[in-house]
């Protein structure tokens, strides 16, 4: 089973890398950009009996390691 985990910074957490990207896009004359926030994607191929089992294992992985819940949110997307 394949899953995609998207990790983003929580609202209110300063994102200097997002700011730098925003500045670079601005320098390239892209207009209308209000805000840029960057995060990361982790793709995991996992053996699981079903979606519920996979989600529960992946949630534990996010809580224990993949995300730092002090500053980050995570979303789990089971892809097949």
């Amino acid at each position, binding site marked *: 089973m394949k899953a995609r985990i998207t990790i983003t910074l929580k609202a209110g*957490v*300063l994102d*200097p*890398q997002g700011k*730098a990207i925003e500045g670079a896009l601005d320098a390239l004359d892209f207009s209308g950009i209000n805000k840029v926030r960057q995060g990361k994607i982790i793709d995991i191929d996992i053996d699981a009996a079903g979606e519920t089992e996979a989600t529960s294992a992946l949630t534990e992985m996010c809580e*224990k*390691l*993949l995300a*730092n819940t*002090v*500053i980050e949110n995570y979303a789990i997307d089971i892809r097949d």
Partner: protein
Amino acid sequence: MATALEMVSGVKPVMVWHQETEIPDVDLIAIPGGFSYGDYLRAGAIAARSPVMSSLRDKAAAGVNILGVCNGFQILTEAGLLPGALMRNAGLHFICREVHLRVENTNSYFTRSWAKNAVIRCPIAHHDGNYFTDPDTLKKLEDQDRVAFRYVNENGNVNDTSNPNGSRNNIAGILNDRGNILGMMPHPENLIESLHGGTDGLGLFKSMLENVA
């Protein structure tokens, strides 16, 4: 760090490998910096889940004194032993230079040899030293006098230009609620020899030594 501890205490520290599962009975556990653990995923994230950490948690709960410098501070926050997180420096650059710190709390095991509000020089060398925590935790740290060190200018004033990395409230080091754990980004162990440019960092080691039988 090991050299500094030996120089000040006269005792050779016991080295513990991250794969070990038992930390021996000691007065102080130091988690040094230096990127020796790798910063994959997030700074200190993988190291904070290494086998030795469960013994470290037991020691922390038993009240053993624990010092984390630089990467060691990042590991302690990732392990949840200190609140908050250390994020990418606000200016995005790796910073390697000397800063000034004000010693805010002089009652702790780690800082008691300094005079209140002493301003010291200290080297920093990090990419992820931007201390972040939510407003409630920040207030608690301030109210409970748990900010050990703050980035200041040479006159001891807190301002934006004396903040090298964007840390909330210019925080450079914090204590846990029990006062037996200190995490700090600057490297006092690198400024304890006059031949190396000064001895401002000695205060940390003198403080800790007062308590060693």
